[in-house]
């Protein structure tokens, strides 16, 4: 992964431990530099790109395999059963067995299908998703490309998946596939709006679209706690909105209607099998990973350590720790929350998330102007710092919470609380 000039913010070592940790922190960058010395100078850009691609594909491919097994085991625990435990130690080689099964299965294409599109759909889904990883900063000086409009690139790369879903559903020439695809597209379009809107406060407050700079804006510590966006009222609200919209964007429970097994068999995947099915599976997980990585970058401080004294650990460790924690949250939610009905799903997006995200924009604006008008004094005077920051905090949080209350009440208007009747 490429170094972004040498503007490391690491405090250069006073102790041997510090320099060791610096080395550990930059180990991947160093390895890449070293590898590049083996190829001629004029091929460096291509070589660098190839190395980044190989690294990303191997890391996230492994993460995919690991996540499938962990998800199955986690769901099993939640549902009070064991989950896969036969292949390998504790069943941890299950992904390999799965892969072998998927690759050796017969690839069936329906007679009435639009053959070309049916073939292209899984590719169109999987390939652009890989692109999205290119702009994510995985650690200090570790992002494949340092784009000025990084986040726009990210969303642009993600927008191809809707077309892929449509291609899969329509080309299968199957009623369930088409319904699943239509559901999927409607859901993705609807939730793309809150997803993007909830990121805008971050862009507003850090004044850049560059993901590396967004992470830099979150570096530093106040009272020993990282200055993450999620620790501000607009950031916390935006994070929640983002996570909800991200769940829906990646078609995961409780928003997994496009593939709702109990209703439409498997949605747009109905007519797929074998390797193509595996590709779809991979594409969906990669989408989840990408959006999770973005959440970490935008709200959870990217590769910054949570507490000041923990910043001795390497930056990439922190990125992947947060990443793993968020993935765990997704698995947990999948095992816990029941599926929505479709009209509820769309109402929730348009009547609740979108207005709330707009309110959050206003909140972020107020926060910005408050911090410009009443700048916080230095941290060395904690009481005065609290005195100026607390009112701003309360006002912003209060505004968002009021909007949340009102919108929530409006959304559940004319709905009596659910009553249950039991057999007597």
């Amino acid at each position, binding site marked *: 992964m490429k170094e972004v000039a040498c503007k490391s913010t690491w405090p250069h070592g006073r102790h041997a431990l510090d320099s060791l940790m610096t080395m550990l922190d930059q180990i991947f960058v160093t390895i890449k530099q070293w590898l590049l010395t083996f190829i001629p100078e004029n091929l460096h850009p291509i070589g660098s790109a190839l190395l980044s691609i190989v690294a990303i594909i191997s890391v996230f491919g492994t993460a995919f395999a690991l996540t499938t097994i962990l998800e199955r085991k986690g769901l099993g625990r939640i549902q009070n059963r064991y989950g896969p435990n036969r292949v390998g130690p504790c069943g941890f080689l299950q992904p390999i067995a799965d892969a072998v099964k998927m690759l050796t299965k017969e690839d069936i294409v329906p007679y009435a299908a639009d053959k070309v599109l049916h073939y292209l759909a899984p590719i169109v889904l999987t390939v652009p998703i890989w692109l999205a990883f290119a702009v994510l900063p995985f650690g200090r000086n570790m992002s494949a490309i340092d*784009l000025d409009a990084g986040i*726009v690139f990210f*969303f642009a790369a993600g927008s191809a998946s809707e077309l892929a879903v449509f291609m899969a559903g329509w080309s299968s020439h199957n*009623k369930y596939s088409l*319904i699943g695809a*239509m559901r999927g597209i409607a859901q993705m*379009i609807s939730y793309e709006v809150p997803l993007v809107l909830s990121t805008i406060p971050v862009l507003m407050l850090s004044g850049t679209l560059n993901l590396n700079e967004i992470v830099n804006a979150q570096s530093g510590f106040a009272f020993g706690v990282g200055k993450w966006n999620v620790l501000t009222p607009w950031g916390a609200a935006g994070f929640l909105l983002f996570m909800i919209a991200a769940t829906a964007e990646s078609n995961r429970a409780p928003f997994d209607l496009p593939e709702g097994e109990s209703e439409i068999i498997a949605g747009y995947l109905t007519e797929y099998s074998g390797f193509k099915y595996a590709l779809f599976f991979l594409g969906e997980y990669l989408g989840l990973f990408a959006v999770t990585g973005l959440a970490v970058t935008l709200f959870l401080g990217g590769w910054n350590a949570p507490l000041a004294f923990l910043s001795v650990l390497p930056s990439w460790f922190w990125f992947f720790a947060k990443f793993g924690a968020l993935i765990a949250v997704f698995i947990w939610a999948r095992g816990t929350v029941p599926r929505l009905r*479709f009209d509820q799903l*769309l109402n929730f997006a348009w009547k609740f998330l979108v207005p709330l995200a707009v309110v959050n924009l206003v909140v972020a604006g107020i926060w910005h102007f408050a911090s410009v008008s009443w700048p916080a004094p230095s941290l060395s005077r904690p009481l005065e710092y609290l005195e100026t920051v607390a009112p701003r905090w309360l006002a912003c949080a209060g505004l968002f919470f009021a909007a949340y209350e009102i919108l929530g009440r409006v959304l559940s208007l004319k709905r009596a609380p659910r009553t249950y009747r039991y057999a007597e």
Partner: protein
Amino acid sequence: MPNKITFCLTAIFTLSAAVAAMRLRNPVHCALSAALAFAGLAVAFLGLDAEFIGFAQILVYVGAISILTIFTVLLTRGSEVEQRAAIFSRSWITGIAITIGVTGAILLPVFSSSLSFKTAPVAASAPVQSIGNELMTRYLLPLEVMGLLLTAALVGAVVIAMSDAPDKKRLVVPASVGRASVTGFSSEVLPAKAGTTNQRELTTV
């Protein structure tokens, strides 16, 4: 030289996708090839150092307009393939003739001008920061007008496309697809139901 090669590849890709979009007989295929053409154009924009526009092009055209087009095709039963018989009609021939005229009218001035063999200045870039600054200062009024226009278009599109019977509560896009299938179901289910009720009536009589 590599620049030219990249450009030519992009151009050929874009143009062939565009021709396909205009000539394929199945409208769904047309829309998908159009998406390809739009993506190719975005690559051309990137080649012109217009990073932001390239990504915005993909976001808007591939991510939104193509999808919208496909939805419309499906909602209007447009996915039925056009019959070939009508292609070489009189209007088609006049259309193509006029198109050739228009092409000539555009390309003739382009290639006859001395300006067109100019090469680009070395340093030209529009960082996102400067685009943002311009939008908030010099182009503030257009931006506001654009916001108004988009809002009006949003409301207008919803109002136009809304069903005529507002008492039937249903969603604009996906539910109508769902409804088509539901009516399909009910047409199969209904006769059986009618049969059973008739039987019951007969027995009571």
